């Protein structure tokens, strides 16, 4: 796309997610002035060669072989449905990469890419954004750092939220978040919050 242009620079580094999976972070700077850049966090491992996929396929094939079509065993059928269902769910809903496109002063676009190339995105206009922060949250069995966008009140009209967390599915660790945070803070000047 625009990688062919002279002014575009791309930096790639490897990081890990909170669960220990390997991730790539791409920082693409579309413009020489710090007005437009894109952060993409993507899983390194390809789904179709991963251990989980191969193992699931193996289990499905062996269950189908053990299944007698004319006199099906109930338990085998139930387990087969479960495993196939789980595989389909992973194919449809597991996130391959997430990216944040920052264009000052137009806005912020969050895109999540699933398997087979499907994408969903969300746009936040610039004047709603107050700040981008790194915060900590306690989940059931761990404490994670996450990057979040603070929104101005009155609430952003489509989401009605005060805070939108970024990279919710790929969940990179603090080192990666700090790199992204520093680039954003250096580049963009967020609109001043009007005091009420």
């Amino acid at each position: 796309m625009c990688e062919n242009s002279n002014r575009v620079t791309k930096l790639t580094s490897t990081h890990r997610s909170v669960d220990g999976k390997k991730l790539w972070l791409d920082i693409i700077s579309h413009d020489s002035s710090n007005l437009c850049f894109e952060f993409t966090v993507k899983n390194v491992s390809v789904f179709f060669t991963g251990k989980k996929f191969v193992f699931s396929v193996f289990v499905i094939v062996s269950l189908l072989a053990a299944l007698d079509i004319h006199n099906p065993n109930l338990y085998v059928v139930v387990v087969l449905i479960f495993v196939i269902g789980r595989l389909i769910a992973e194919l449809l809903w597991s996130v391959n990469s997430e990216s944040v496109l920052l264009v000052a002063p137009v806005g912020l676009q969050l895109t999540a890419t699933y398997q087979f190339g499907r994408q969903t995105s969300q746009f936040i206009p610039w004047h709603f954004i107050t700040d981008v922060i790194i915060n900590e949250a306690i989940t059931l069995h761990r404490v994670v750092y996450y990057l979040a966008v603070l929104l101005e009140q009155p609430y952003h009209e489509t989401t009605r939220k005060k805070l939108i967390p970024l990279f919710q599915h790929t969940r990179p660790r603090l080192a990666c978040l700090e790199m992204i945070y520093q680039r954003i803070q250096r580049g963009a000047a967020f609109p001043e919050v009007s005091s009420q």
Partner: protein
Amino acid sequence: MGGVEEHIFNLSQCLISHGHKVIVMTHSYGERVGVRYMTNGLKVYYLPVRVFYNQCVLPTMVCSLPLIRYIFIRERITIIHGHSAFSALAHEAMVIGRLMGLKTVFTDHSLFGFADASAIITNKLLEMSLADCNHCICVSHTGKENTVLRARVHCGRVSVIPNAVDTAVFTPDPSKRSTDSITIVVISRLVYRKGVDLMAQVIAEICPRYPQLQFLIGGDGPKRWLLEEVRERGGLQDRVTLLGSLEHSQVRDVLTRGHIFLNTSLTEAYCMAIVEAASCGLQVVSTKVGGIPEVLPSDLIYLTEPNVPSLLLGLETALANLRSGNVVPPWDCHHRVALLYNWMDVASRTETVYHRVAGEKSKTLGSQLRRYMASGVLPFLLIISLAHLMLRFLDWMVPHKVSIRFTTSILLNI
């Protein structure tokens, strides 16, 4: 309960100023869940542990194990300091920390009895938990005796470090006292163990005798109705003022309006309130229970027996001295208290304990189990073994990289 939180906050601030890293871990309070940063970078973890009656959590030993272990590794904790014998979270964190090879210190803030059912159970739990604790701290010598007897801790492992008050905040202001009447201030939770029954009777008997006496009562609790009844019966609405529960910032203003401070507790390990009152220059009349005789020098306090005639005698002595001018001036009183008690001193004494504890060797699982066996409750060993197995499993599932350089981090628990 407010005293323990004050203690933790002030101690943390002093330790941070000495260069240590301090984390406070507690359960959630209402909507307050998550990580918060307080003054000077004190990090407080409000864990999402289910809270039951009266801000208490269930005494599970292993239920929050993954989360607590994660926090210990994440913050690189080296010493765990648990507070308050009733804190289930403190005991749980200390058990887990010991299995992970960290050092533990425990501070006991109250006195307990030995006779009733709740005391027997709590004492046994405390004995089991402290069987393998590296060191214990008590807030008075009476508290030390009580802890050593209750929990069968060897007295060489118990230190006495009293609480302190923030004497910069609690300064006297004699101009706020009224000149035509004498004001007696009482600030405490209005519960049975603080002697509200004694207080009510004393008020009822002394007000008719001394017409220029005023009472200011701050604090709230289940026994408030008793004081209101006394007010109604004696027609003392204009002489007895009930202020309700006070914010910590308002306490000093109420104290400076008084001439005498009255404390009628039936049991007390160490009374912060009388030190605060003495720091504000008030004369103190108190019952002689628990650790109170150790707290103030004898010329700054009038000690009485915990019954009504003795309290009346004490109050009348104080009033007579006040009238004749035979009192220690407020600012002298304040300076003496400021020399005796200050938080930096407490923090450096606590640091001595930490240094001593950090030098001890970590124990193997076998020796820990043998220590727990001495308490005589063998099923507890099963719980410890379960916790150990869970830790091993978590080490496999959520491994941590071992860092060679450890910062001195202390974790205070409530």
